């Protein structure tokens, strides 16, 4: 890969070794005047990820070596900044933005380049005239976090072990792999001296982060009232608490529901922590994935979908009136509030 590609895809393995051969010490990356603009660009990456959810990539085709180096070196600096702040929302959002921007760019690259990037993630793809073939095991590893039904293996053209995918789809699937790689490596192990050196940048990012967080305070429904949960959710919760293993689709429905009504990731992790071989790290990872990095968690599936997957327990009268488990909850909360108000009025009067 040439140095320009490495600068645009700085998360590939080759980029790490390349940066090493350049012989820039951490010291220089943090302090050298010559690298001022690399650091500035590093901060910009993080800020763009928070504000736009996307990192603007420079066009490097006509530019000289210097610009390429600065772009390349800005990436390790971004990762240092994110690591110093060490906020799980920021990490998710930053990793996603890096991955999305890379994926967007990948759509414009040629086939061989896609093959090369895929290889870097241990995924082998074979190019054909108008599509690629990917082994189904690689495919499900990448696609299984994808929400849209069209990504389900059952809806793919699978033949003798290989899935038929388009150029664009390869780019989209690699986005998942890229995001995983970036997110899993963060936070880096950074010393407080290193972070102190970057203080001014860090403060600036923190402020923007704070604003973003208060902006997106999503759909506040007040305190979580478990009594108003719909039957499907209550049922799943009692299943979990007795150690039953939920199916994938129900796990997703339950987790996204709880996140949407305002439970925190920690609270949900605790809820799943009942069985002796509970794997906290993995559970947290899955929940954080559903929590999403855009600020809003995934929406839980509709009643229709719940029914398709055999996850609906709709026997109660409220279920007749709604088409979505979240609406069940909203309606019930509303009704309860109304009742209480009436009660207190009666008492007053």
């Amino acid at each position, binding site marked *: 890969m040439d140095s320009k590609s490495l600068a645009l895809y700085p998360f590939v393995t080759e980029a790490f070794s390349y940066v090493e051969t350049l012989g820039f010490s951490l010291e220089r990356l943090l302090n050298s005047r010559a690298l001022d603009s690399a650091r500035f660009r590093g901060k910009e990456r993080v800020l763009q990820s928070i504000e736009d959810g996307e990192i603007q990539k420079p066009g490097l085709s006509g530019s000289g070596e210097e610009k390429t180096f600065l772009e390349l070196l800005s990436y390790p600096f971004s990762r240092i900044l994110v690591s110093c702040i060490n906020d799980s929302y920021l990490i998710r959002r930053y990793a996603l933005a890096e991955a999305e921007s890379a994926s967007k760019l990948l759509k414009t690259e040629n086939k061989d380049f896609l093959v090369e990037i895929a290889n870097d993630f241990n995924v082998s793809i074979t190019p054909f005239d108008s599509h690629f073939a990917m*082994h*189904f*095991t690689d495919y*499900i*590893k990448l*696609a*299984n976090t994808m929400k849209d*039904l*069209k990504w*389900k*293996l*059952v*809806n*793919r*053209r*699978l*033949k*003798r*072990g*290989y899935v*038929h995918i388009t150029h664009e789809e390869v780019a989209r699937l690699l986005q998942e792999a890229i995001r995983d790689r970036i997110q899993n490596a963060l936070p880096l192990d950074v010393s407080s001296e290193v972070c102190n050196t970057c203080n001014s940048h860090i403060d600036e990012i923190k402020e923007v982060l704070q604003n973003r967080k208060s902006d997106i305070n999503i759909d506040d429904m007040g305190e979580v009232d478990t009594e108003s949960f719909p039957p499907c959710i209550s049922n799943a919760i009692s299943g979990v608490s007795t150690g039953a*293993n939920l*199916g*994938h689709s129900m796990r997703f429905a339950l987790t996204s529901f709880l996140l949407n009504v305002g439970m925190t990731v920690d609270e949900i992790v605790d809820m799943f922590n009942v069985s*002796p*071989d509970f*794997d906290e790290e993995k559970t947290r990872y899955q929940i954080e994935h559903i929590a999403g990095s855009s600020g809003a968690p995934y929406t839980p599936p509709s009643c229709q979908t719940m029914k*398709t*997957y055999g996850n609906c327990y709709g026997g109660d009268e409220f279920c007749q009136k709604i088409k979505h488990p979240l609406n069940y909850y909203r309606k019930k909360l509303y009704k309860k509030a109304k009742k209480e108000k009436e009660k207190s009025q009666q008492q007053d009067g």
Partner: protein
Amino acid sequence: MNDKTLRFLKKRFQDYYQDAHIHLPPEYTSREWGFILFDDMPKTVMRRHMAFGSSGELQDYFSWTVPAHAYYSVAYYEYPNASNMKDKNWLQSDLIFDLDADHLPHVPDSYPEMLENVKQEALKLYDFLSDDFGFGEDDINIVFSGGRGYHFHISHPSVRSLGSAERREIVDYISGRGLDISQIIGKSYVSGDSGRRDASMFVFPSENDGGWGAKINRYIISYISNIVNSNKPIKKLTDFSGVGKTTAEKLVNIFNDEKQLSLLKKGKIDMVSNTSKNLFEHLGKQAVDNLIANVDEPVTADVKRLIRVPGSLHGGSGLRVTTLSASELEDFKPLENAVVFKDNPITVNVTQPSIIEMKGNKYHVDEGVQDLPEYAAIYLMCRGGAEYGSN
């Protein structure tokens, strides 16, 4: 089960294990093993978290402790004998499918019929694994469970690192769960050029598509071909609601014309009338119901499951957990080929009257003391329907 029966069964199982060859899974030293011993019965305690370093050691364990039920983990662990699941350190797992008569939509009363039904599912599953998933005959280990079904073991390196969610995707594929059939067959709306109204067109899969599309194409074409090549095709076709005589005749013509038929196979459907298209759509849905294989999802998704050891005996039937090749599957008769005991007479006291069909013989067994061929006697005792001896 009384003591005398237990002792008898233990002795006969022991004789079997003295000569039998236990089928060792790949990397058997990294597996956890678990056993239910005759010595512990009638209580069912599983002695698990065991590991063996050599095949001799395993063979000895079988012949000296004599398990009624024997299992090993589908998982490979770093420390398979650690007593806590977490400390075992999971490395990888075989991919497993479980087909069980109890999980099929219709459960017939008779055991042979039940086994036949589940065999049909096994054949369908095999097609999925070879046509769609591309596994070779040597990659797929088919095992009769000794009870009511079959286990498929796949140890191919490509599948070993798959997690539970990914394994569920495979099950969903095989059971058609989440299949969006509207993308494969039926009317679909495509947006036209600006200014024009959206055009609707009929989508139809090609047999070259792979995936469910190809399956559905082949099903529909062979279904209608069968009708066209039978006698009274017109009558049979017009029995479908909405299909009139003209439509039926036209269909027969298309299916008798090699060229048009090969176009249909490639997913070209313009020559077919709208009424026929509706028929195709209807058959497409029917195809899905007929082609899915009912595999037990939780078993496949559980990467730490214990599964019966091929070559061991099933303590609930006395039948051998039997490994089969794909070509053997079709003709496999569990109640003949998985029977290991002889036919010398054994006196038993039958407590549950039953009908037994084994080794080509059918016995109507009434309550009370009687002689039965050893294999039938052991089968009944294992199932708890008889005790050993005359009292």
